[in-house]
């Protein structure tokens, strides 16, 4: 029988339709403006916190749509953005700085859909508003910092070994050490080779013998990698403070970091916080005086009262042993003897020297690490939220000095690998990072984002309707069938975008619009072929058969070439273009499916397997 489809093809279509509908569905429900409140070490998300939030919002007369408790997180939904923005400040002042409060657009997807992992499309910054930064790590400065550190190390080494040198100079790429005699040079060459094996040593022979020590390729790569990772870590910490629900902080290329902060409007504030630096200090614990007396009010001269992360008081000496910028690296791991978690710290030459001097006379005594950060804080003043900056100083670790040490040492006795990891992270964020510069910034205000969504939606709908009407008028029944395929195609594009959680941007919407226009091309090709066959005097059934068959290779050729263009666009990879390429590529693939298989199935249902006099085409 001609023009009949096997059952499995219909089942496949129905399957695609159902799956497409399910995954496209979450987009119908939209999103609620919400506050996402997460706790920290000493601020649990519990009924008390929830109570505080609700009573603060009631007092401020802000209507809440719903609240949801998730592990470690409280989500408060609002009816509109206005209420959400107003609520932030009140919630912040009610909970204090221990909680992270982020603006968020929470999908209003029903629970059964969420269970099927169906989520709405992920909207790009140009649609939801927010900030995009492209930051470049100054790798030259990172290498220079390393050279500077090495020159200090070399100076200390030579002094300690009492090798005489004329001068030590850190240049951009290398350290130059000049000697007065050949013997000194040979002796220091041996010493440096042993102590600093990562340096490449070369002779300089001017009037006096000299050595040039430069970083080898691998070492430079390591330094760059470390500088990048350290900056990403630091940025993550800072972004938490900004209160962003779904921040994106990723490496791009070898030297750059992309930071995307959806919903953030105040770029000046964002830049200030991202640029702020945390520092830390190693200090001696004042064990000679009683902490409780100090808490009562009499702090001994030369000491200061601090609090640890659990809020317990600690009395520390004012004199600083080592500062954060003297830390070269800190990493967590396991103690090889006891198997317990530990943090290894590496100091530069200056830090090592003062650490040595201090530990020589302090074995068996405790030492503390203070973490210093600038945070912004919101308080209610006469019922109006006011923002202020606060310097937060916190003791993050107290440990007993077991032995004399200088450049490298370990902190052991930590409760868990998690704690070790966190301490290493904090130590590193206090270390001197290679400077970063903003090389690209794109901020989209909330009103423009909203306009973009509305305009994008409108142009898709109007363009779609225009094509539907035109096709129905021009190809009658066949046109209506093509319209059904087009509608299914749109559903499938939305479903695939939702499923992949690919970012939908304004150019992405343009890509959908363009696909709608071009998707009918396959049908136009088929239908024109059928008309041609009919004109040539073939029977309706044979014309349908021949039309689909003959058009197939043309459709494939045409779509593959467009796909080549889309793939090139994808690999080009910049935000705006990528968004367009993604929807275009998805649209090409889904349209091939719906326009060929989809229409054929329906046409076969209508006309297939029976004698017909004419086609409505």
């Amino acid at each position: 029988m001609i023009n009949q489809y096997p059952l499995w093809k219909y089942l496949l279509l129905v399957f695609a339709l159902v799956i497409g509908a399910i995954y496209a569905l979450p987009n119908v429900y939209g999103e609620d403006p919400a506050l996402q409140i997460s706790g920290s070490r000493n601020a649990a998300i519990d009924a008390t916190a929830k109570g505080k939030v609700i009573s603060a919002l009631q007092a401020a007369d802000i209507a809440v749509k719903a609240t949801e408790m998730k592990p470690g997180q409280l989500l408060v939904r609002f009816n509109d953005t206005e209420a959400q923005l107003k609520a932030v400040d009140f919630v912040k002042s009610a909970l204090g700085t221990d909680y992270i409060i982020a603006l968020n657009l929470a999908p209003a997807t029903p629970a059964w859909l969420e269970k099927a992992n169906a989520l709405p499309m992920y909207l790009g910054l140009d649609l939801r508003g927010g900030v995009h930064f492209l930051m470049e790590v100054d790798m030259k400065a990172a290498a220079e910092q390393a050279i500077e550190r090495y020159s200090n190390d070399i100076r200390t080494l030579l002094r300690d070994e009492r090798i005489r040198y004329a001068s030590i100079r850190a240049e951009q790429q290398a350290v130059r050490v000049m000697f007065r005699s050949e013997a000194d040079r040979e002796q220091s060459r041996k010493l440096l080779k042993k102590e600093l094996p990562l340096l490449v040593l070369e002779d300089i022979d001017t009037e006096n013998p000299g050595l040039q020590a430069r970083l080898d390729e691998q070492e430079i790569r390591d330094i760059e990698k470390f500088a990048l990772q350290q900056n990403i870590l630091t940025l993550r910490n800072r972004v938490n403070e900004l209160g962003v629900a779904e921040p994106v902080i990723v490496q791009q290329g070898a030297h750059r970091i992309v930071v995307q902060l959806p919903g953030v409007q105040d770029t000046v504030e964002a830049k200030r916080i991202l640029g702020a630096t945390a520092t830390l200090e190693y200090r001696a614990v004042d064990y000679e005086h009683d902490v409780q007396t100090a808490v009562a009010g009499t702090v001994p001269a030369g000491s200061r009262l601090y609090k640890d992360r659990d809020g317990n008081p600690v009395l520390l000496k004012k004199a600083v042993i080592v500062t954060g910028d003297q830390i070269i690296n800190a990493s967590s791991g396991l103690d090889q003897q006891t198997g317990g978690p530990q943090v290894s710290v590496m100091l530069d030459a200056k830090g090592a020297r003062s650490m040595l001097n201090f530990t020589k006379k302090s074995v068996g005594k405790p030492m503390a690490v203070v973490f210093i950060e600038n945070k912004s804080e919101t308080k209610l003043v006469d019922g109006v939220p006011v923002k202020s900056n606060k310097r937060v100083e916190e003791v993050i670790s107290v440990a007993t000095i077991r032995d004399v040490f200088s450049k490298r040492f370990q902190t052991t006795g930590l409760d868990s690998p998690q704690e070790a990891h966190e301490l290493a992270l904090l130590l590193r964020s206090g270390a001197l990072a290679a400077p970063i510069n903003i090389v690209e910034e794109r901020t989209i205000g909330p009103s423009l984002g909203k306009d973009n969504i509305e305009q994008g939606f409108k142009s898709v709908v109007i363009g779609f309707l225009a094509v539907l009407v035109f096709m129905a008028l021009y190809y009658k029944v066949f046109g209506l069938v093509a319209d059904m395929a087009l509608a299914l195609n749109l559903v499938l594009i939305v479903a695939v975008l939702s499923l992949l959680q690919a970012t939908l941007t304004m150019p992405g919407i343009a890509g959908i619009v363009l696909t709608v226009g071009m998707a009918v091309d396959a049908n136009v090709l088929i239908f024109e072929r059928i008309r041609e066959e009919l004109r040539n005097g073939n029977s309706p059934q044979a014309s349908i058969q021949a039309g689909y068959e003959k058009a197939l290779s043309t459709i494939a050729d045409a779509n593959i070439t467009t796909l080549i263009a889309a793939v090139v666009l994808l690999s080009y990879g910049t935000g705006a273009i990528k968004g367009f390429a993604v929807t275009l590529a998805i649209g090409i693939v889904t349209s091939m499916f719906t326009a060929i298989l989809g229409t054929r199935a329906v046409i076969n249902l209508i006309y297939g397997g029976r004698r017909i006099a004419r086609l409505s085409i």
Partner: protein
Amino acid sequence: MQLLKGKLNINFMGKRRIAIILSGILLTIALTALITRGLNFGIDFTGGTLIEAGYPQAVELEPIRATLAASGFDGAQVQHFGSSREVLIRIAPQANKESAQLSDEVVAGLRQQNAGVEMRRIEFVGPQVGEELTEQGALAMIYALIGILIYIMVRFQWRFAPGAVIALVHDVMIIIGVFALFQFDFDLTVLAALLAVIGYSLNDTIVVFDRIRENFRKMRKGTAVEIVNTSLNQTISRTLMTSITTLLVLTSLFVFGGEVIHSFSLALILGVVVGTYSSIYVASTATLALGVSKSDLMPAKVENKEGDGSMV
């Protein structure tokens, strides 16, 4: 309903001299505009700062210019954008200013001048990033062309490939020429549009080529010109139909899509119009000029993979 009734017999190729002259004139104008006026590159390529500010009421541009000049940005370009309540400010990269700090200063200045201002969009692109984008953009264009060239050479015959690529270069040149002539903004989205035009115009060309190949194999008599003519007549309804539906959605995008993608949809509209014309005239004419003949396409030499269906 049919746009073109019955069996068509338009002598497209008979008018190919006129088409060559027309394309020649258009390309000359495009090239002249490109050389004399250049493209009005957006900050994506040049680097610099772009700020779109929204005001509660319609605003005059002069006070804003004065404010900016007072803050040291006398070179700033200020214009209305979409409506008289929206203002677009463009500032060239400044050598002595710390990159992103510049936008902060401008924003502060604007707030001082009119407290009701709302920052709708701030874009800053460092000069180096701009350079990279330009370079990558040009490369992307070349890669797309090469990829397509190879595909056509494999699927058709080498004589078709230059025809298709000449048609594409023709289309892209004319669009760029229009952008240069009227000094429309040429930003990243326009580049994306150009690449989409390459895909679209090629789509058209391929459909025509497919028919030409089929007819060369099927029609026993007739010169190359006659065969090309028949093929064009057979495909013209489809070419026009697809162009119309695509233009329908693009017009919707242009009218309702907002200012941000104006340039983008404009480039695409131009591309569809020029692409339709070029797939009829430029691609086929070029292929004819390269001397495509029946023996080139007979399946005897080449292993026939998919042509069987059309040999009926």
